[in-house]
């Protein structure tokens, strides 16, 4: 269209001088159009432009993907995927603590529970310092790096109890009734409100540990958990990233020493431990129990775990047992041959003696 217009304009501009010259003489045409354009205007079908536009549009729009023809696209979610609606308002500190404790309980195989009776900040600091330095020494001797991941923190007992129930009795993967509407279903039109996209905490398809579903699943077990009597008063947890008996032994010898297996560090080698602040803090710490891979242990059982030799010790023990078995088998197999040899030798000796006797006579 643009080219045609420009051509037309050029023509009119060129023809205008002749128009001006002939204005005095014969009548000039009012709208001078070239014959080619006139021909086009007369013979052009009226729907030409519209038709071309339509054909272009159908060529550009892609066909819908295959999966959209079998399952419909659900309406857009009204909350960010990282912030699904929770049972408790997410901006509260207790909600975030619940998240933190659930994650801790799911990830840590060993949790020691302590009661802390009015420890001062300096005492906490001294205890953490001593614990960390002792664990670093253990790490060096074992060539591991757990010391920085072993954390000693005060917890809120009530929230911890709730988090414990959710961590133990609620499995998010078990709840997979998310809606996959069929395209022929009239309720799946784009204006339909599919339940899992409504920002409501009661929605059964929300599976995170702060959801209402997690709460209703875990709540009935509240009265029966064996760790429940422990979860009152001022509590602190010591969490381990792995179940390593040498580290447990070091921790117990610092926090709750008992002479033969868990001796306290010597005053000469470790004067910081015998500092008044550290000792004052340690007197106020009480080891109550532990949670080891989902099971509840008391102080004695934890001492038993700490007294284990670890993988190195167990390997040594196994080698010893296998060695003694081998010795026994060799002995048993040898015994038959040796017995036979003894009998044959004895018999030969007897025969020789008999021959000697005969020769002598």
């Amino acid at each position: 269209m643009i080219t045609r217009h420009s051509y037309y304009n050029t023509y009119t501009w060129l023809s205008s001088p002749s128009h001006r010259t002939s204005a005095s003489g014969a009548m000039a045409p009012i709208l001078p159009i070239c014959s080619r354009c006139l021909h086009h205007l007369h013979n052009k079908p009226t729907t030409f432009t519209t038709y071309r536009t339509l054909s272009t549009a159908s060529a550009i729009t892609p066909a819908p993907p295959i999966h959209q023809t079998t399952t419909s696209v659900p309406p857009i979610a009204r909350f960010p995927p990282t912030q699904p609606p929770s049972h408790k308002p997410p901006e509260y500190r207790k909600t975030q603590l619940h998240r933190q404790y659930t994650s801790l309980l799911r990830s840590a195989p060993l949790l020691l529970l302590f009661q802390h009776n009015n420890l001062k900040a300096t005492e906490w600091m001294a205890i953490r310092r001593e614990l960390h330095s002792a664990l670093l020494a253990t790490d060096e001797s074992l060539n591991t790096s757990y010391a920085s991941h072993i954390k000693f923190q005060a917890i809120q007992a009530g929230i911890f109890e709730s988090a414990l129930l959710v961590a133990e009795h609620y499995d998010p993967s078990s709840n997979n009734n998310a809606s996959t509407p069929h395209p022929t279903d009239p309720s799946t039109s784009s204006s339909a409100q599919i339940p899992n996209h409504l920002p409501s905490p009661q929605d059964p398809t929300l599976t995170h540990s702060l959801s209402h579903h997690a709460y209703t699943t875990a709540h009935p077990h509240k009265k029966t958990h064996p760790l429940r009597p422990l979860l009152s008063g001022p509590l602190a947890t010591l969490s381990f990233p792995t179940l390593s008996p040498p580290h447990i032994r070091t921790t117990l010898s610092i926090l709750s020493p008992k002479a033969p297996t868990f001796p306290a560090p010597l005053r000469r080698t470790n004067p910081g431990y015998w500092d008044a602040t550290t000792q004052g803090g340690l007197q106020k710490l009480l080891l109550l129990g532990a949670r080891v891979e989902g099971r509840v242990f008391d102080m004695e059982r934890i001492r038993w775990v700490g007294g284990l030799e670890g993988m190195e010790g167990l390997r040594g023990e196994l080698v010893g047992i296998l060695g003694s078995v081998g010795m026994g088998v060799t002995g048993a197999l040898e015994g038959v041959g040796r017995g036979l040899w003894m009998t044959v030798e004895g018999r030969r000796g007897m025969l020789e003696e008999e021959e000697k006797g005969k020769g002598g006579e």
Partner: protein
Amino acid sequence: MITKHITEVTTRFNPFKKPSKTCRVFLAYLPANARTTMKINTTVLPRDSPEPSFLKLKFKDGKEMQLDTEKLKINDLEEEVDRHSRTLNRKADLEG
């Protein structure tokens, strides 16, 4: 709770039983410098121990108080201890 007249605390409890809460909360009520002003003996029993929990207190005037923590809650315990501590307070005030 008035703790300044207490000179000795002896307690024994099994933390896996519910009545132990009274003893544990009592220990938490003692002030941060309690270990310098009084003697505190705590025994934590193993999980399957049938022994009942108990709490024994000694005061400055020599009175000994044995408290049955199996029945008493922490509020009742506080009341019992404060009743004697208040009389000691009064005595100290009168002596000037």
